[in-house]
């Protein structure tokens, strides 16, 4: 198997695995955050605006981890430097 095929296989498999594994954690974390926010809203409805605002900020922080994994996945598929290098070598030959 030449290096071009190897790079392609590694990039594709890693891109899929990155986003698959990387979205499990944030999804679980966000589920717990929303569940706790709902129960505290039920206990103290007049603090609703503070709770909602803090919930959104917390969700954005948790979501960032999934976004990092997504960006890595996109880079591997669309802006892969190793693939570009190997393609340039093959085209130059």
């Amino acid at each position: 198997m030449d290096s071009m095929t190897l790079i392609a296989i590694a990039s594709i498999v890693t891109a899929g695995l990155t986003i698959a594994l990387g979205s499990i954690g944030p999804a679980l974390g966000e589920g717990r955050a929303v569940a706790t926010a709902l129960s505290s809203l039920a206990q103290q409805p007049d603090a609703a605006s503070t709770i909602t605002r803090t919930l959104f900020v917390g969700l954005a922080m948790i979501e960032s981890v999934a976004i990092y994994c997504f960006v890595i996945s996109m880079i591997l598929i669309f802006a892969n430097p190793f693939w570009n290098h190997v393609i340039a070598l093959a085209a130059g030959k």
Partner: protein
Amino acid sequence: MRLSPDDLIFWQYGFLKLNGTIVSTWGLMFVLAIGSKLITRKLSNGPHRSRWQNLLEIIVTSIEKQIEDVGLRHPQKYIGFLGTLFLFVALASLFTILPGYEPPTGSLSTTAALALCVLVVVPFSGIKEQGLGGYLKSYLEPTVIMLPFNIISELSRTLALAVRLFGNMMSGTMILAILLTVTPFIFPIVMSALGLLTGMVQAYIFSILATVYIAAATRGRTATPEPTDELSV
């Protein structure tokens, strides 16, 4: 498939490039600046005021109240910066309604620039509020061992701000492009509505996080937050 509006080049001369990011940023600046100038030409204090002035007042007072709620005292000093951050990012994603428009925040250059602005403003306002010695001493709290971690957290917060906004905007436009190739038209429209929602939320998040960072820098790291008035009976 285009990864960012940086690759859409309108005009090039040597290494000076006019790409999609710059053109849409200029368009947004034009709309914001000229719109505000036109609306605030004849401000009225009385009970009769134009609709647009009312709209601007609603926006400004709600942003000021939000800044105050998060714990940053004297919001008038910071509302210029924070309000502009919010309005720029919100308008950038709101204009995705227009056909043929790509949000400039979908390019890492724009979001990195905005995050760098926050990185500069936070120590600047901290020093202005607490003095150089007081601000630098806040890095040594709670103990001296935390100094490298505090410095690293400053840098990683900035990086997180940039990548979070970039990732959200880019994924919105990319999902739309991918869906347009495989499904009938109704699904991309629904995804575009979702992209609009996340754009607004991300604009709010960006400005609220900048507010929290400035509040932490101006108040000192070990100050306890004041209890909010809405919870007191």
